[in-house]
């Protein structure tokens, strides 16, 4: 019996305008073309972009190693009528997403240019700076509801910290973004200077799924199909959660706040239970941990809700939410991607008004100080 799938979609009239203000913690803006970055790049890098382009650890130019099930990974109705790829047109984004869904704030998560995975580190540094400037010039300065994040390629830690300093002086960014598929697991010490700055600046560290660090996306090796790779996003963030907690990042940086974006939240409970059980047995291997892993998770980590889990029984979704904790969840839509969650219909389990308020805006408002 499926009361989740069978549950009728409420009538348009009943839920057209959400009574709640919504803070959408995952919106993807796009470049029209790579040349959009030219105003933010020195001539040398404009030339490099045109002639050499990306140097990634993936085989194809201009597309991802796993073909997505929809062009540019997007909803088919998100292509702006004036042209350009989904997510590239602010006016259309307002019309299709921000206005009708009454989005109070949207946090931008930029994926274009695979900044985190550029192997030419100098080029990567130039691109990340350009993308950080582009966010302000094209998006947040024109639309006060949208908020930018400082993108940093974490494998060049020195350049990452320099970029954080530069952007922090401008002061218009709400988050620092790194990538879960980097050269090493995120808990490793080589990345700690980034976390130190994030803590000092009181900016949450955002980790959005994806990227190409050169390692197979699954523990079993390189999968053949997007159907597998898409799900491996959840596994990769579970691994990174374990890395960050067990290597001692929240212990070392007790004021650091970490957000996992687009990993969903169904996997978190069993990861916490497993870490706690291992901690019982193996705590003398990790004496730097002063608390149980689940305690670190409950104080230092947040998780955006998309892609929301769809159990056959609505009450099971309820259990997942309770196991993770309502306070840890941040609503996200992932607009304009195909696996987008519509805030009116994605939660197919009853929530109290108070819970709704926290998940759909309250938790994000407090975390990002909006």
């Amino acid at each position, binding site marked *: 019996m499926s009361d989740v799938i069978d549950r009728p979609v409420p009538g348009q009239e009943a839920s057209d305008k959400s009574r709640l203000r919504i803070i959408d913690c995952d919106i993807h803006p796009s470049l029209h073309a790579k040349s959009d970055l030219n105003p933010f790049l020195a001539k040398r890098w404009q030339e490099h972009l045109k002639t050499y382009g990306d140097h990634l650890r993936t085989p194809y130019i201009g597309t991802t190693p796993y073909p997505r099930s929809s062009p540019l990974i997007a909803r088919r109705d998100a292509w702006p009528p004036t042209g350009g790829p989904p997510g590239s047109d602010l006016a259309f984004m307002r019309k299709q997403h921000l206005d009708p869904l009454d989005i109070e704030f949207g946090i931008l998560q930029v994926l274009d240019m695979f900044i985190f995975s550029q192997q030419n580190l100098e080029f990567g540094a130039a691109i990340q700076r350009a993308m950080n400037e582009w966010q302000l010039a094209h998006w947040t300065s024109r639309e006060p509801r949208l908020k930018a994040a400082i993108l940093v390629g974490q494998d060049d830690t020195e350049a990452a910290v320099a970029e954080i300093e530069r952007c922090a002086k401008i002061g218009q960014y709400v988050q620092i973004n790194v990538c879960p598929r980097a050269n090493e697991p995120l808990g490793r010490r080589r990345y700690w200077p980034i976390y130190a700055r994030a803590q000092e600046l009181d900016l949450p560290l955002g980790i959005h799924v994806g990227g190409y660090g050169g390692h197979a996306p699954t523990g079993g090796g390189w999968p053949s199909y997007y*159907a597998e790779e898409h799900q491996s996003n959840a596994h990769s963030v579970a691994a990174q959660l374990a890395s960050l907690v067990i290597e001692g990042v929240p212990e070392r940086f007790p004021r650091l706040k970490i957000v996992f974006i687009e990993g969903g939240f169904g996997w978190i409970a069993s990861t916490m239970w497993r870490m706690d*059980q291992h901690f019982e*047995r193996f705590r003398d291997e990790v004496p730097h941990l002063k608390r149980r892993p689940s305690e670190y998770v409950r104080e230092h980590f947040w998780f955006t809700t998309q892609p929301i889990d769809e159990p056959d029984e609505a009450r099971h979704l309820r259990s997942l939410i309770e196991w993770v904790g309502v306070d840890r969840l941040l609503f996200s839509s992932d607009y304009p991607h195909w696996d987008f969650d519509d805030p009116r219909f994605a939660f197919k389990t009853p929530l109290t008004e108070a819970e709704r308020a926290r998940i759909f805006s309250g938790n994000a408002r407090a975390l990002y100080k909006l």
Partner: protein
Amino acid sequence: MLSLIYEGVFVKFPGLKVVLMESGVSWLPAFMWRANKTWRGVRVEVPWIDREPAAIMRDHIRLTTQPFDSPPDAKGVADIIDMIDSDKMFLFASDYPHWQFDGDDAIPPHLPANIVSRMCADNPLETFPRLSLAA
């Protein structure tokens, strides 16, 4: 597991069962739901998978119960079992002489009685056809 399913191994070998050992159990429900959710939308990439991945898991995958990675309470364990929606998937294992198993009992705590009874004999006998109980 996703690789076994999506590459069509169980289509090609419909009698095959795969036993996952010492992999934990409580991760399975979210894994099943995510696989179903993805498949419903991306099915055209793998059209030889003509039913939900979770249904394939229930038919072809078995898990040993040590470690379980249990929730801390009986209700949580009952929820996990309910979510998995199969009494056939669990196989008793002690993991002797390793020390990773949970607690001091070989059988994880709070498991419903029907699960315990199936996992100790019926499921292993159905999974390993060359086993039989001593007369």
